């Protein structure tokens, strides 16, 4: 918790001041213990966290997630067997058959939220975390597309649909089913370790150095 001060209007804005993104309350930034979080004094929003070594850890998790995403899209999710007929499907195949059935909006929505945006998000994160001078605009774009990557929800949808199919046919789990499960866990872990506040701070420091 950060104590809030009444700040006279003359106080000049500095990197030490922070405004809550949910209630706009001005507060003074304070150093945090490792693995701590600063909470807004007024509305309880998380202002920033501290997790030392987050850049390296998040980068490692992001590379792992990119590999898992590739595997998940190349290999079939499940094979279905019913009375001698066999049907093998990948996620992209499911999207494609939806498109061919004339349901373009739904096909596009599924393609964007489960394949395209997660892939773009991971690519952007690798660039942001690995480069010595990450472009601020890229981080802004990343924050804008993040809510639309829905791997974890897709995984749950996969479980529900398998449960529904279990009554109709024999289901043989494919490689992508396991890799999607792993991807969901890695995605959750990298979302937890990714420290946006720290990245913005590094960018601010770099621009001061290059200006001076």
């Amino acid at each position, binding site marked *: 918790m950060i104590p*809030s001060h*009444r*700040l006279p209007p003359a*106080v*000049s*804005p*500095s990197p030490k*001041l*922070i*405004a809550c*993104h*949910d*209630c*706009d*309350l*001005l507060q003074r930034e304070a150093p945090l213990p490792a693995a701590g979080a600063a909470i807004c004094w*007024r*509305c*309880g*929003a998380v202002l920033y966290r501290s997790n030392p070594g987050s850049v390296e850890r998040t980068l490692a998790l992001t590379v792992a997630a990119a590999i898992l995403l590739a595997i998940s899209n190349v290999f079939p*999710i*499940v094979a*279905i067997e*019913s*009375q001698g*007929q066999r*049907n093998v*499907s990948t*996620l992209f*195949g*499911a*999207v494609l*058959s*939806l498109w061919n*059935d004339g*349901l373009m*909006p*739904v096909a596009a*929505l*599924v393609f964007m*939220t489960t394949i395209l945006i997660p892939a773009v998000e991971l690519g952007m994160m690798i660039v942001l975390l690995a480069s010595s001078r990450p472009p*601020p*605009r890229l981080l*802004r774009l990343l924050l804008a597309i993040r809510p639309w990557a829905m791997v974890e*929800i897709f995984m*749950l*949808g*996969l*479980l*529900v*649909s398998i*449960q*529904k*199919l279990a009554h*109709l*046919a024999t289901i043989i789990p494919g490689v992508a089913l396991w890799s999607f499960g792993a991807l969901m866990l890695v995605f959750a872990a990298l979302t937890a370790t990714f420290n946006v506040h720290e990245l*913005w701070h590094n*960018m*601010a420091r770099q*621009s001061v150095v290059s200006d001076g």
Partner: protein
Amino acid sequence: MAERSAAELGLYACRVCAMIARPTAASAGDSCPRCGAWLNRRAPHSIARTWALLCAAAILYVPANLLPVMETASLFGKQQDTIMSGVIYLWASGSWPLAALVFFASIVVPAGKLILLGLLAASVQWRAQWLPYERTRLYRLVEFVGRWSMLDIYVVTLLAGLVRLQSLATIKVGPGAVAFGAVVVMTMLASMAFDPRLIWDNLKDDRGHRPE
């Protein structure tokens, strides 16, 4: 009240990177010196945009629930499923945890989002004073849970993509899925359009004046 918001001091707090800019250095419509985002004290026309998107979502909510999201054709005839009948099917087949999950994600969350966001927008429009802390927490809940209604879109996509056993059974996605997907996207955009800082702007201080 010993607290001041950035806007009350005439400062601009960047919505994306939380950088604080002085009015001498920036004015409304400028871009943030750090990340290049559009600087505004409050999201422009936040309430009007929230209402517009909520109205669109409420209209689409009707076909989303009445039209079939899934059409199953098998040797035993044709069957059409709406969102609700899909939940009932899961319940009847004995998978109660999944039925509860789908009921929550597809029925409770979209309806709850429409009602709660409408309530929040109305409370800001009427300059309500009550429970700002709770209303902010409610907003954060709506934003966090909202994405999960995409679940059913994934379920019908996967079922349609996986079940293509020509002679035995085919599952097609129905027109209700287009409307349902649109409801999810519209309500997500509506919650992004809502600026929770407006909740706090309307608060009067102890003497009944707006702090200025």
